[in-house]
């Protein structure tokens, strides 16, 4: 099978959905003429025209509101938040207008829209935020956060076709990640995790940019005969309870890793799900969370590596869980 980068896989998903469904349209800041700052949407305007792929002014709340209204009329908008810090500006339209529309209309109006939001990881305290827990908290929203090219394509297509608003989290550090991607359109169902490393000693539950980090940690620890299972959640809402719980029951040890701040981060929810379940009885050790310790991401390359979880942090977390 041919190999694509995540950015190419996302672009292919958008292109195939634009082609297949005239109600799909793509817009945002710099997405059309420039093709997206990381080339995810490159060439789409040329192919589909300015009616269906267009640039907007810097107006994230207006853009999100526009998507909500259009989706209510049966369109399937895909709107980009150029970096995740911007989602704070659009949060009213996402968390209020989009998330509650189906509910208050008793199903009579729905909002099948996709908000693409891009985590930068580094840069500064504003752009380098991981806010997936903010949106995962809101009833009515679904949250997708894939790590591989194949999942990026399949989940993007599934998100566009989903009848509800989806916040689709991307990560700059993943855009160049390569992997096999089928050429034809396909979906990866929302709410299904993927076990990317089979293991028996400890489970690492993670998503998005921390998946490759956890995999590297697993590969390194394999040399010490420590068998690490890596669960890539792929989707936060809906949540794949079954895969997480059965892995924890099997290994008896749980490490949760994400780039977001630890307190009230999505990892807290993962841990809570485990402790509320029968899998809790299978735990042999306290769970460990590997995450941002609770600081804004500093700009300097001398500083941010100390804030963002890396392979060594995940390895240290695994060793603690094995203690």
């Amino acid at each position, binding site marked *: 099978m041919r190999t694509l980068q995540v950015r190419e896989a996302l672009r292919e998903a958008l292109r195939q959905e634009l082609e297949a469904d005239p109600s799909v349209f793509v817009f945002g800041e710099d997405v059309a003429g420039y093709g997206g700052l990381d080339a995810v949407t490159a060439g789409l305007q040329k192919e589909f025209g300015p009616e269906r792929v267009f640039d907007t002014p810097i107006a994230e709340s207006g853009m999100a509101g526009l998507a909500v209204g259009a989706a209510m009329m049966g369109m399937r908008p895909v709107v980009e938040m150029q970096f995740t810090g911007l989602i704070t500006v659009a949060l009213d339209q996402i968390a209020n207008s989009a998330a509650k529309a189906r509910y208050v209309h*008793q199903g009579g109006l729905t909002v099948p829209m996709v908000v693409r939001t891009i985590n930068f990881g580094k840069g500064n305290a504003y752009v380098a935020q991981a806010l997936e827990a903010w949106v995962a908290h809101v009833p009515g929203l679904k949250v997708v956060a894939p790590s591989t090219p194949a999942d990026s394509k399949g989940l993007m297509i599934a998100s566009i076709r989903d009848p509800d608003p989806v916040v689709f989290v991307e990560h700059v550090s993943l855009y160049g990640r390569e992997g096999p991607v089928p050429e034809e359109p396909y979906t990866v169902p929302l*709410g299904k995790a993927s076990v990317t490393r089979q293991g028996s000693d400890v489970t690492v539950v993670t998503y998005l940019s921390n998946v490759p980090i956890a995999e590297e940690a697993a590969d390194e620890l394999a040399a010490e005969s420590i068998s690490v299972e890596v669960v890539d959640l792929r989707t936060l809402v809906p949540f794949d309870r079954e895969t997480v719980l059965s892995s924890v029951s099997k290994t008896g040890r749980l490490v949760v890793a994400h780039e977001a701040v630890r307190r009230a981060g999505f990892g807290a929810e993962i841990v809570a799900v485990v402790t509320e379940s029968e899998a809790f009885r299978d735990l042999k050790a306290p769970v460990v969370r590997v995450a941002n310790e609770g600081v804004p991401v500093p700009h300097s390359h001398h500083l941010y590596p100390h804030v963002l979880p890396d392979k060594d942090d995940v390895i240290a977390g695994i060793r603690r869980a094995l203690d």
Partner: protein
Amino acid sequence: MRCNGVNMANATPEDLTPDDLREMYRLMLLGRRFSERAMELAEAGRLPTGLHPSAGQEAVGVGACYGLRDTDWIMPSLRTTEAYWTRGVTLLQMMNAIMANSGSISMGKESFHHCGYPELGIISGPAIVAAQIPMTVGAALGMRMKGTDGVGVCFFGDGATARGDFHEGLNLAALLKAPVVFICENNLYFQTVPTEIGLPIENVADRAASYGLPGTIVDGQDVIAVYEATREGVRRARQGEGPSLVECKTYRFFRHHSTLRETRSLDEVARWKQRDPLTIMAGSLKDQGILDDATIAKTDRRIGEELDAAVEESMATPGPDAREAFTHVYAEPIEAMNI
């Protein structure tokens, strides 16, 4: 009076028949009687909710919606109750929504002034003031992309013009030439405080110029003036000429909300009551021989009977089943989220 200098309708428009005019009057009267009755019930503690009564502003919702097509969509503000009547919402539907009972269109999920009626082309306006502005622009764009000639009509108060979504919405609408008409119901107060607190210029309509849009000021107490200004905005939108802003200078006759106290001077309220939209329209229609006191009295009596019946039935209708609280969060049941 601060409504000096606004455009008054010159004569009855040719596209409105005497039946239309009588119907517009009836809708305003129905709105007035509903406001009065709902306030009475609220003050007597018989409603489970408070309300933002629209009395005094009836001409805005009726005038703006009367000429719309079934295929157009509107987003009302919290006080555009007359838009609901004009689009076909019944007194019983409205009372059921107020009582939040099992007859409510939202099955008790939303309060009556945030209820949408998709079959009547009404989208629920969120409680976040001005959020409906970019949403209506999106709806208008969506209608155009779907290949229809539908128009979006967005209602908001003067208070909404201080929020970023007003700017973002009008700016985007202008750039995209979205088929939308913005109706600002300027009742001269941001909730409890005068408009001067939040609007550094006299006219909201003047702001349209900064988006290259036409901005019209009309006497919001004159239903025909509102009708004509909206008709022009809708015509432009439908013909692909883009959006426009209509500012209706108006005034509410009751307090901002049934649970809040009056903050305006009694003198000012009394002066504005001299410009009652019902009196203005009745006077004009009587002069033209289209309406008489006997017909008004008969219409009023019928509305009263319908209102009595709606109040009685809505109060006797049971609440929604508890399970209703948990439905329609997603297309799938909430259990499917697994979290």
